[in-house]
């Protein structure tokens, strides 16, 4: 009897497990809209969107938009949070399966380049045109066309630039640094280790934050990794002295950073500034939104500044951006319709979740009164929003993944390899000779590109 009961229980467990697998598989098939099923009561089409904007507010905005679209058209839209680092793997792992995504939000142009190379992306020039064309996207600055076609629709800029405490400057009788020497001087004046006060924080961790933020010093000295023919020129006679100068400046700034800079990532950059530990930090507009949310006392005590050039004749910032790509699936057309509707009807609500951080990629939105009347945009117009526009128009903008003559896999490979964080760590933590480090880094880049 006992044996019979055991067998029945085990078989039941097994069959329920298998049934669970099968039914979940079937559900996903419907959800993907890949091969059939009737997920939506009206049209049977479901669009799955992978979102690298994983924050609760952004996900809610996407989900709400999806619900409204379903009500309107009968097409179901499901948004899933997928961390940026997992995006490419998840898209590829699910492609052509019942769980495939139809569109995705990404902040890394390398994803677009690599997926286009695999033939998995739909061109979106028609959507760009319907949204005001290349001109509205600041003359196509971050459209990154590949062989004449555009494969993503940017929705924001995330430049990496400086924030400085005005009250600290006033206290020390200093002004916003305009040259590298002034930058070092201000950092030194702000630092009082006995009181846990430091001049600045720049991330040095072995991750993307360092790739994005700390490279701004290189861009401020006109450093490039590639020339117009994709040769690695970091160690060329023209480029190497500039790179060495920038690295020497970083070396001089390092003593005025808290120890955690070695292991600092995005959160540390904001925490150190909001928590009064550093007088300067480097980030996007998100810091302003965080100041508003976490420490309103600072709302009139900071100033935005571009990374100064050596001689004070200009400023620089690292280019950053986010956009939506559309994958080639059975429902590409429906997905494109949804994305176009989203940009026209819902993008403002989405950008409004972190208004200062999501600096619009379209000039028409920058000029849009509804957007300008968002509370944070209104409140921080002079201190946090307009300065971003000025940087966009006037600063030297570059980033590892967009360096070179066109959108290409090579800079993306350099970005992913984390050779730049290693270069910065060797200069600062290990106190190595910048000249040798630049040579080694250039050789490492050449060697990794050769293996591709």
């Amino acid at each position, binding site marked *: 009897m006992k044996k019979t009961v*055991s067998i029945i229980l085990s078989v039941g467990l*097994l069959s329920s497990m298998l049934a669970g697998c099968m039914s979940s598989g079937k559900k996903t098939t419907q959800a993907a809209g890949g091969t059939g099923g009737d997920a939506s009561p009206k049209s049977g089409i479901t669009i799955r969107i992978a979102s690298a904007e994983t924050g609760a507010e952004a996900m809610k905005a996407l989900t709400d938009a999806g619900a409204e679209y379903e009500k309107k058209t009968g097409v179901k839209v499901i948004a899933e949070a997928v961390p940026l680092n997992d995006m490419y*793997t998840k898209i590829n792992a699910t492609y052509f399966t019942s769980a495939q995504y139809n569109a995705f939000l990404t902040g890394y142009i390398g994803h677009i380049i690599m997926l286009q190379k695999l033939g998995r992306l739909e061109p979106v020039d028609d959507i760009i045109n319907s949204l005001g064309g290349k001109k509205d996207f600041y003359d196509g600055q971050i459209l990154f066309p590949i062989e004449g076609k555009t494969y993503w629709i940017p929705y924001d800029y995330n430049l990496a630039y400086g924030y400085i405490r005005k009250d600290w400057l006033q206290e020390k009788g200093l002004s916003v640094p305009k040259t590298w020497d002034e930058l070092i001087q201000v950092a030194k004046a702000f630092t009082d280790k006995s009181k846990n006060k430091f001049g600045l924080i720049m991330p040095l961790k072995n991750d993307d934050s360092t790739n994005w933020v700390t490279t701004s010093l290189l861009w401020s000295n006109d450093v490039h990794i590639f020339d117009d023919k994709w040769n690695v020129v970091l160690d060329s006679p023209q480029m190497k002295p500039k790179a060495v100068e920038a690295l020497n400046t970083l070396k001089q700034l390092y003593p005025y950073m808290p120890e955690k800079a070695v292991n600092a990532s995005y959160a540390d950059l904001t925490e150190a500034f909001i928590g009064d530990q550093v007088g300067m930090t480097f980030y996007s507009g998100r810091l302003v939104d965080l100041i508003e949310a976490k420490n309103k006392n600072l709302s009139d005590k900071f100033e935005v500044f571009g990374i100064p050039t050596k001689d004070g004749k200009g400023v620089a910032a690292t280019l950053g951006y986010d956009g939506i790509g559309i994958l080639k699936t059975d429902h590409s057309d429906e997905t494109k319709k949804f994305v176009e509707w989203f940009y026209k009807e819902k993008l403002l609500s989405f950008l409004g979740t972190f208004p200062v951080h999501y600096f619009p990629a379209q000039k028409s939105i920058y000029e849009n009164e509804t957007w300008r009347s968002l509370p944070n945009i209104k409140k921080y117009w002079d201190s946090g929003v307009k300065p971003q526009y000025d940087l966009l128009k006037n600063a030297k903008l570059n980033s590892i993944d967009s360096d070179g003559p066109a959108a290409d896999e090579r800079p993306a490979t350099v970005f992913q390899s984390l050779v730049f964080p290693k270069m910065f760590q060797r200069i600062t933590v290990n106190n190595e000779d910048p000249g040798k480090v630049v040579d080694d880094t250039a050789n490492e880049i050449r060697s990794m590109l050769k293996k591709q």
Partner: protein
Amino acid sequence: MGAIAIEHRVTKRDIPLIASFLLPGLIIFAFVIIFPTFLAIDYSFYQANSFAGDAVYVGMQNYVDVFLDPRFWRDLMKTIVYSGATVALQMAVGIAIALVLNQKFAGNNVLRGISVVPYIIPVIVVTIGWEWMLDTDTGIINHLIASLGLGKIKFLSTNMAMWTSVMLSTWTWTPFVTLVFLSGLQTISHEVYESAMLDGARKWTQFWRITVPMLKDIIITIVLLRGLWMFNKFDLNWLLTGGGPLEKTETLPILIYLNTFKQFKVGYGSTIAVISFFIMFLAMLVYLRIFRENQAKRKYLRRKSRNAEKGVALE
């Protein structure tokens, strides 16, 4: 009763029962372990830049490249140091705590509960919490050190990061050793210790002459399991340092992750994973060999002592 059940002969009628017990586990095992293992072995013969794109068959080239890569050897050494140090410390501390918790004293149960806490806290919480506490400028640990008049310790510097990681790993996973060893201790009869005490054996002697030999199999099992787990440990190191600073905490799992999921060198990353798998497989075989030798030796000694007893009786 237990002995009778064990000696029960399996007949054809039992096969459906056995199969129904084994199948769910085997299916999961096949999907989660066997299939990915073979997939990784397959990938290791290809140059693939993604999991889904075109892959070029390169035969053993990835293996040649890995074996010629100094970063692989350096990270292998780091992995051995990390897993060796963490296992040694976990064993020493875990056994010590288990011995204390095996004593009868007030609050013993509360202490037993507390001792498990590090093991049940999610690794992300452990990492962030300790990162705060160990911060050179604001961390409570350095404040305590400074209040004693000592210099601050840069726990995540190039010289210290690996040892900090070892320390946190020890803190987090020692409770496993404690739990298993404690349960083993409770199987040893008090009479054995009492008679040893009557013979004048001190605590230290009791530990080495009674506890360790009687729990030798458990110790070997814990060492093996913890060794394999620590060799494969990725989360804590990745979250704490990302393999830095200057790749000082870059162990093989991190190297595999960086190659496979960061640089999308799927073939190369899979090759390192396969080599790593075979290293552990080899370690398991060595363990089984030692284990079997031990068992055979014990059986032989038991038989010998039984024969000797018989001989005495005959005399």
